[in-house]
């Protein structure tokens, strides 16, 4: 097994008595694409800033392995904050050249690489225009260009598509899919769909802790449990019946919301048979009955909601 590129162990960050990140551990393998998934306030930004070296952790360690020349690990890092701010009086080209020089390139090399990076993110035509006149989507793409220009070994992107309209979002996702072929990406999002579109691994965060992590394929089958959804007419007798079903031994977990119920069951066949038979016998006014399997989305909604 190859040594992981990034190794985070027991990382904590507290502000006074408030714990933003409460001791998390994970590893990122070279060449992988990992989504840091979680609702607002989960601690995604805090985690990424600590990895980027912008925020000192309260405890824990971050190990970045590799052969980087000259010492400063930030040379090997590309970082895009949640709402990147540039110098409005600069042109896009000038900013990316500035970033490339800071990463150690000489002027000539920086200019060549900046041009290529801007072309790559689709800003070739706007490269000589002042950043002050860029749209939100263009700024996000400029942010990607400045994070990419020095070919970093690890790319940290904080909610790269959250602030964009559907078209801008499409463009950036498309780019990420290309970029992931070349380097390791960690990006945060609060939308599971974004993660599934680009990444093969997710880390789900909630309240500063990791609620679940792993390869998407593994998690999909892990959370693919038999599920029965039942909806009845709104009457007291029916609701009482739903409650009684929830207490049956073959129900692993019941989520009741008035006349709407979701049951996780261990044996779909038996459960379906029993529920339908009872419903018919007790003359329950069923509106909907559905037998299927739960998805990752259900798991994520449960983490986010509960």
């Amino acid at each position, binding site marked *: 097994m190859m040594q992981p590129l990034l190794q985070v162990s027991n990382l904590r960050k507290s502000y006074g008595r408030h714990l933003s990140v409460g001791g998390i551990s994970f590893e990122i393998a070279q060449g992988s694409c990992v989504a840091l998934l979680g609702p607002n306030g989960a601690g995604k930004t805090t985690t990424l800033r600590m990895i980027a070296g912008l925020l000192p952790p309260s405890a824990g360690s971050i190990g970045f392995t590799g052969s980087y020349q000259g010492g400063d690990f*930030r040379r090997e*890092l590309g970082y895009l*904050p949640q709402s990147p*701010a540039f110098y409005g009086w600069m042109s896009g080209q000038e900013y990316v050249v*500035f970033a490339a020089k*800071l*990463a150690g390139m000489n002027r000539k090399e920086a200019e060549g690489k900046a041009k290529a990076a801007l072309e790559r993110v689709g800003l070739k035509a706007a490269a000589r225009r002042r950043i002050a006149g860029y749209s939100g989507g263009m700024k996000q793409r400029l942010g990607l260009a400045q994070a990419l220009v020095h070919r970093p070994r690890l790319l940290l992107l904080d909610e790269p598509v959250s602030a964009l309209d559907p078209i801008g979002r499409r463009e950036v996702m498309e780019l990420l899919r290309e970029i992931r072929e070349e380097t390791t990406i960690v990006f945060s999002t609060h939308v599971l769909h974004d993660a599934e579109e680009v990444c093969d691994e997710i880390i789900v965060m909630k309240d500063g802790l990791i609620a679940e992590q792993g390869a998407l394929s593994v998690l999909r089958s892990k959370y693919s449990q038999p599920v029965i959804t039942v909806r009845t007419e709104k009457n007291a007798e029916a609701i009482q019946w739903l409650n009684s079903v929830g207490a049956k031994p073959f129900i692993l977990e019941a989520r009741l919301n008035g006349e709407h119920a979701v049951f996780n069951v261990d044996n779909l066949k038996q459960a379906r048979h029993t529920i339908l038979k009872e419903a018919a016998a007790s003359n329950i006014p069923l509106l909907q009955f559905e037998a299927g399997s739960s998805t990752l989305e259900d798991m994520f909604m449960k983490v986010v909601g509960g």
Partner: protein
Amino acid sequence: MRNTWIVYQKEMLETARTYKLIWIPVVFILLGAMQPIITYYMPEILQAANNVPQGILEGYVMPGAGTVMSQALGQYSTIGILVLVLVAMNSLSGERYNGSAELVLSKPVSPAGFVIAKWAGLFTILFLALGLGVASALYYTEQLIGSLPWMDVVAAAALYGIWLLCALSLTLLFSAFLRAPAAAFLSLLSSAGMALADSLMPSWFQWTPAALPGLSARLLSEGREAVGVNLSPCLSAALLILFCVAGASTLMGRNKLPK
């Protein structure tokens, strides 16, 4: 080191693009030229205002070149400081609050490098503005009033420059952890406080940077030999500047992220 230079170049490009490199020297040139010109034409000005009592006009004595020059420099301790502080107040706080510092500091740039580049940028503006301002004051003084020993003027301007640099460095320090208006207010307050303390109890404060403007004025009116060498205000100014830059670096490191 190299990256500090790159950030400094960016600073200078910004001062040029936002016209600071033009308008600040222009203000200093106007302030410098105004004093000798107004002094020279004072009799005419008074005459034009025809309800001036006779005695004032007859009693008007043209001040010496040294006095005019030190009055011109005196303009810089009021309007000059104000202009410089208003320019410097945003230097760190603006970038902290809008997030542009976060992006730059995610690159191999240390907070100290960032602060030093900012300080060097401000120093360059001050150097240019004061240099050109003093040159214009000297030119009109020589043309209209009388000649001055150049070396004395250069030394006097340097002393004044160090005092202005103290005010700039204080602004930078406050700008590293406060919002721009608060930073400007506090640095103006502390420079004014030091100057006031020096004027009330000169013997107590003659070793502080606040003694520099007075020293500069004496140098111009009495000459270098009469004033002699007085290093302690320069030394304390150097320490103050060093403290401000070091303090600003530490505070910038802690407050670099936007809220």
